[in-house]
């Protein structure tokens, strides 16, 4: 099946590519009619919550998709195999199937240890504390190890960046570790070499360099916070005084660094305390979803999202609900969580910030036109009212001026020292990254660079195109690259050293507030990987030291009580070095916003192109991680590709759109128009995607895709936005051109998957409405009487497991999805299969939009997220229809799924109103690759083809905890003792699991709240998972009148 791939412009054969082009037999395209969508939105009463534009348009073809869970002919053989070939194959497989089913069990051997490792009980996992560095932040983790194999990542409750939760990137790190595509050998000029040979070469280079004082030696790394590495680099620079150290993070924030410098005349690090803030304004800051400390910030922020009523609040010591304003050019999860969100063009953000500063008496302009002005006035008044308890956060992608303005406004509102603190920078040597890289490129061009050490990163792929990094790299005499993959950069380097994964390395790292963790390995390097410590060490006076020696040596004066060895063990055990958080400083504002030059906004009719790290693959570093590739992006729900995001109005103006290309009712294949984007003389062809909530005239180009050498999973996916990213327009650029090519491109979008007949599943209300009608959520659905069933009642005298998910808190970050995938051995299926609606995630996050008023319409709808897993119904429709008893009710109320009994009729799934069962159509799990076998959780069956699977409430964790409790004098399982994988990962504490039979358990108390409701409860399925209705806290001054829930009803 050769397809012409319009994005990459060459023919290739790839399992993840679609097999049919538009117009093939059986493929029908249904164009989306935006005018119809608007008409429908305008005609009230419209649907309250909607997931896709097609749904809103009541597209008849979309309706057809709704009515079929599995595509028509989903199980049909649609490869181009003729009938004879098919029969021949079938005959053979039938004969073999008959035999293989009845064979004797194969003989196995037991391979015990020669000497038992200390502290290990066979069959019991051990947890080790370590940390994952990410730019200028590190997240403390507890990693589960089964007999020496790290299998699952949890957050470290003692670490300030984590507080026990994680994000999707951290969850996916185990797959990164076992990735079979990682580079495995040292290479020199493309030939296999060895670390020993490199070491000898390094010593020779060091000797030669010494004579010239290190002239010509250059170091290129990302942001570095590791104290050991910093000390090593410092020693190296002392040894070679003329050497230089450059830093480049393609998605790092020069704006934040330089903004601090602009405001305070020096680099500072800002640490926020969202828990202390009553009113928060985000200037394009996705502080809940990305950037240093985001998991911590999400934890703190959502602790203030309890919409309890007056008396209740005091009773539980819960602080009143906070309020979040967000202005942003492109939708983010933070924007989706906002009480008020305003789409603004990138260049207007600064205008807005200046106007706000003016409003607060900091000088400068203070008037904004029309609606924008009203919005600003309301927000400014709200901030004023909460002086000292408000917070302004500027976004990572915003320029220095906006950051300086945010600092000035925070100072003016008296927030410094209250809702935010300043510390010395976390990075050892903060620099202006783009200038740092520019200087390096200039030196390379001038032939001043003799030896270049590239530690991690991937500048050959992600440097601004005008730097022509790769061309200049060719002028370097010896380029040495430490990298996890032999990628775009390694191609042009003389030496490539495989980099050890953080789970294989000794190191140390600072978190967003400066807290230091020792990074300890869980496993010896799988592929003889080396760390940056060892590569720098190779050039030092004492070559050949291991990372372990180097890190220990750096910390030899460590004493937290009891001498070094005891302290060392303690900090390794705890995952943090106590007392290393940077102390707060009180810098003086040395800058006046009025001194800013007149603002330059792009002309309103000119398109603005903005760059953003992709929520899945970030800056491209995770491109080869299948879990992250297949993770539906929070708002677009796209997988395996990026797309240029445009607003509905801009799409209409440019004549762009996408069409559901369903083949016999398949969900998920969408054909999107391709565009040529020309920016600064550079061109790229991208698919487009229409996103409600995007600012008009803004085109978002997500970074991290279009990798030409990422590995089997990540190569040639999506389009490369770096191709049009120039050093003078790192985050935003105007003056580009966009033109439809006339061709289209298939995208795998899961927002069409597993629909639930368009019923009202998300229930939401403003805070005030909730206080007046606490039962609004329950009133919306009817609860049938208990006896309305033909079947025998189950009784649950013991435990009754249940879950409550707070929709006020879920912000769609996806950490739970990957956590579940990792815990439950869930396979990746690939783009082609996602386009057939066969993705396997046991937990999906439905994203709903709601347009409370006509003016917000498509341009700025509210967004809600609803995680849906198996609801573990007490009257489960699935159980009744299984002909082989493969799904049955457990005594504690779980819908047990018995894989070895399942024969794959899929009746259960057809009868499931929640569409949470996943069928393993093909053998999606990779059973051959040895390294992936190490990754699997031994506590969960690895399912094969032809078997239905679904969420089990992590029954392995339930069973193991129950056994522990029973062995401990038959005590009852304590509340919170069983933590499901999704609950553990959730940064918002939105998911709570426990024993619903115990009235004092957290889950029972949540279920007793008035916001509690079950989805499709009217079917009398009596789900064990219930939801707490979303409550938002809008500013009454901004609420459009006459549109509250009650009045609508």
């Amino acid at each position, binding site marked *: 099946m050769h397809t012409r791939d319009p994005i990459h412009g060459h023919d290739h054969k790839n399992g993840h590519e679609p097999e049919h082009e538009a117009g093939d037999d059986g493929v029908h395209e249904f164009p989306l009619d935006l005018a119809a969508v608007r008409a429908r939105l305008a005609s009230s009463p419209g649907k309250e919550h909607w997931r896709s534009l097609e749904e809103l348009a009541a597209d008849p073809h979309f309706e057809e998709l709704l009515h079929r869970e599995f595509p028509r002919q989903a199980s049909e053989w649609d490869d181009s195999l003729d009938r004879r070939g098919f029969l021949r194959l079938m005959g053979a497989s039938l004969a073999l199937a008959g035999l293989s089913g009845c064979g004797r069990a194969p003989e196995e051997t*037991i391979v015990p240890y020669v*000497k038992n490792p200390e502290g290990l009980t066979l*069959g019991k996992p051990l947890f080790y504390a370590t940390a994952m560095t990410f730019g200028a932040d590190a997240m403390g983790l507890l990693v589960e190890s089964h007999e020496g194999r790290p299998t699952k990542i949890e957050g470290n409750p003692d670490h300030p960046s984590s507080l026990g939760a994680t994000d999707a990137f951290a969850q996916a790190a185990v797959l990164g570790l076992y990735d079979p595509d990682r580079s495995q050998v040292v290479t020199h000029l493309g030939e296999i070499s060895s670390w020993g040979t490199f070491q000898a070469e390094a010593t020779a280079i060091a000797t030669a360099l010494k004579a010239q004082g290190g002239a010509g030696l250059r170091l290129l790394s990302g942001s570095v916070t590791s104290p050991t590495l910093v000390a090593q680099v410092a020693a190296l620079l002392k040894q070679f005084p003329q050497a230089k150290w450059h830093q480049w993070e393609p998605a790092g924030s020069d704006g934040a660094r330089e903004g601090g410098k602009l405001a305070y005349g020096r680099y500072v690090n800002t640490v926020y305390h969202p828990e202390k803030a009553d009113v928060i304004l985000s200037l394009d800051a996705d502080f809940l979803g990305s950037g240093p400390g985001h998991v911590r910030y999400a934890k703190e922020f959502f602790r203030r999202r309890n919409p309890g009523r007056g008396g209740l609040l005091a009773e539980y010591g819960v602080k009143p609900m906070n309020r979040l304003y967000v202005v942003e050019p492109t939708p983010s999860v933070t924007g989706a969580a906002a009480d008020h969100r305003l789409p603004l063009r990138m260049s207007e953000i600064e205008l807005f910030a200046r106007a706000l500063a003016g409003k607060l008496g900091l000088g400068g302009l203070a008037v904004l036109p029309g609606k924008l002005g009203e919005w600003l006035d309301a927000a400014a008044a709200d901030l004023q009212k909460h002086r000292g308890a408000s917070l302004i956060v500027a976004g990572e992608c915003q320029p220095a001026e906006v950051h300086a303005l945010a600092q000035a406004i925070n100072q003016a509102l008296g927030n410094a020292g209250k809702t935010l603190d300043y510390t010395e920078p976390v990075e050892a040597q903060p620099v202006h990254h783009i200038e740092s890289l520019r200087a390096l490129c200039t030196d390379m061009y001038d032939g001043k660079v003799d030896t270049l050490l590239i530690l991690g990163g991937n500048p050959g792929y992600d440097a601004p195109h005008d730097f022509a990094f790769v061309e200049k790299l060719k002028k370097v005499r010896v380029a040495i690259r430490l990298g996890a993959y032999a990628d775009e950069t390694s191609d042009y380097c003389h030496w490539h050293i495989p980099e050890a994964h953080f789970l294989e390395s000794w190191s140390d790292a600072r978190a967003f507030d400066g807290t230091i963790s020792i990074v300890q390995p869980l496993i010896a390097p799988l592929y003889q990987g080396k760390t940056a410590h060892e590569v720098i060490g190779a050039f030092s006076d004492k070559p050949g030291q291991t990372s372990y020696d180097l890190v220990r040596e750096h910390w030899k004066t460590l004493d937290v009580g009891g001498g070094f060895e005891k302290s060392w063990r303690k900090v390794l055990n705890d995952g943090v070095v106590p007392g290393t958080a940077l102390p707060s400083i009180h810098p003086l504002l040395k800058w006046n916003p009025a001194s800013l030059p007149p603002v330059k906004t792009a002309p309103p009719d000119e398109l603005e192109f903005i760059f953003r790290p992709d929520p899945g693959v970030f800056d491209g570093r995770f491109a080869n991680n299948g879990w992250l590739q297949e993770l539906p992006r929070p708002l677009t729900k796209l997988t395996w590709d990026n797309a240029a995001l445009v607003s509905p109005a801009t799409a209409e103006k440019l004549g762009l759109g996408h069409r559901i290309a369903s083949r016999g009712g398949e969900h998920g294949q969408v054909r999107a128009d391709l565009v040529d984007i020309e920016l600064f003389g550079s061109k790229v062809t991208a698919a487009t995607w229409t996103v409600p909530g995007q600012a008009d005239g803004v085109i978002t180009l997500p970074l991290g895709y279009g990798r030409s050498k990422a590995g089997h999973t990540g190569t040639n996916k999506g389009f490369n936005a770096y191709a049009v990213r120039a050093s003078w327009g790192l985050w935003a650029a105007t003056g580009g051109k966009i033109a439809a090519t006339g061709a289209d491109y298939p995208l795998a979008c899961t927002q069409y998957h597993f629909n639930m007949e368009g019923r009202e599943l998300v229930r939401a209300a403003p805070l005030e409405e909730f206080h007046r009608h606490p039962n609004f959520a329950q009133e919306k659905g009817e609860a049938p009487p208990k006896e309305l069933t033909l079947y025998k009642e189950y009784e649950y005298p*013991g435990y009754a497991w249940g879950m409550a998910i707070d929709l006020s808190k879920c912000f769609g970050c996806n950490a739970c999805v990957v956590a579940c995938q990792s815990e439950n051995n869930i396979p990746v299926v690939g783009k082609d299969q996602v386009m057939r609606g066969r993705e396997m995630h046991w937990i999906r996050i439905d994203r709903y939009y709601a347009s409370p008023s006509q003016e917000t319409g498509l341009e700025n709808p509210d967004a809600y997220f609803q995680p849906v897993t198996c609801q573990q119904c007490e009257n489960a429709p699935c159980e009744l229809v299984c002909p082989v008893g493969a799904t049955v009710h457990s*005594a504690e109320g779980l819908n047990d799924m018995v894989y070895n009994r399942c024969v794959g009729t899929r009746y259960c799934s057809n009868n499931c109103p929640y569409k949470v069962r996943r069928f393993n159509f093909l053998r999606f799990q990779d059973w051959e690759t040895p390294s992936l076998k190490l990754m699997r959780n031994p506590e969960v069956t690895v399912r094969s083809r032809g078997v239905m699977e679904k969420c089990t409430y992590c029954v392995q964790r339930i*069973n193991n905890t129950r056994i522990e409790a*029973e062995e401990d004098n038959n005590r009852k399982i304590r509340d919170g003792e069983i933590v499901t994988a999704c609950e553990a990962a959730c940064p918002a504490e939105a998911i709570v699991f426990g024993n619903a039979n115990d009235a004092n358990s957290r889950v029972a108390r949540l279920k007793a709240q008035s916001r509690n409701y079950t989805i499709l409860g009217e079917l009398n399925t009596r789900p064990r998972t219930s939801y707490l209705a979303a409550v938002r806290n809008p500013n009454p001054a901004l609420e459009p009148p006459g549109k509250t829930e009650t009045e609508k009803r």
Partner: protein
Amino acid sequence: MAQIFHRSTNFIARFSIYSALFLAALALLVIATVARSPYMTNQNIAREQPVQFSHKHHVGDDGLDCRYCHTSVETSAVAGVPPTKTSMNCHSLLFNNSEYLEPVRESFRSGKSIEWVKIHRLPDFVYFNHSIHVNKGVGCSTCHGQINQMPLVWQASSLQMEWCLACHRDAGANLRPKSEIFNMDWKPAANQTELGRLLAEKYNLRSVAELTSCSTCHR
């Protein structure tokens, strides 16, 4: 018009139908018997091991406690096959020149594990936990048989699901006081029904419904 078939055809027809039914029943019976036979279950078949280790000698004659080697049986899902080091604890002094023990010494010298042939093998989708059984009054010999009389170990029980369920449905029949767990010679008491009931209560056994839920063993 003459009859096409002779009268005797009736007999042939009846005979074929009944024999077909009979043969089908026979085939089912054969399949059921074969499936339960030691040929399929490996029950009662002793296996050669890389080292001629005798449980009969170590347990029966020397009186070693099970837990000297199977250290994690009371705390973990797996009882644990001992590391080479455990053998060497004694055999660095006892029989330290014996030819039979050469594979053990070789393993200790080279750091390479001895690969024992697995006798008790459950399918991968079954999650058996030793510790909970031991802690609830199910003794070793209930499933493993009288290991103290096995020179080479064989599988004493069928390990089929019906065998598991028989006990989960009526656990009392196999419960013993915790003091007798590691007693290889324990036999059900004369008043086992009564004793089982008392022990089940004392050890807080879960209900039959709970013990026979699928997710108790499968996940």
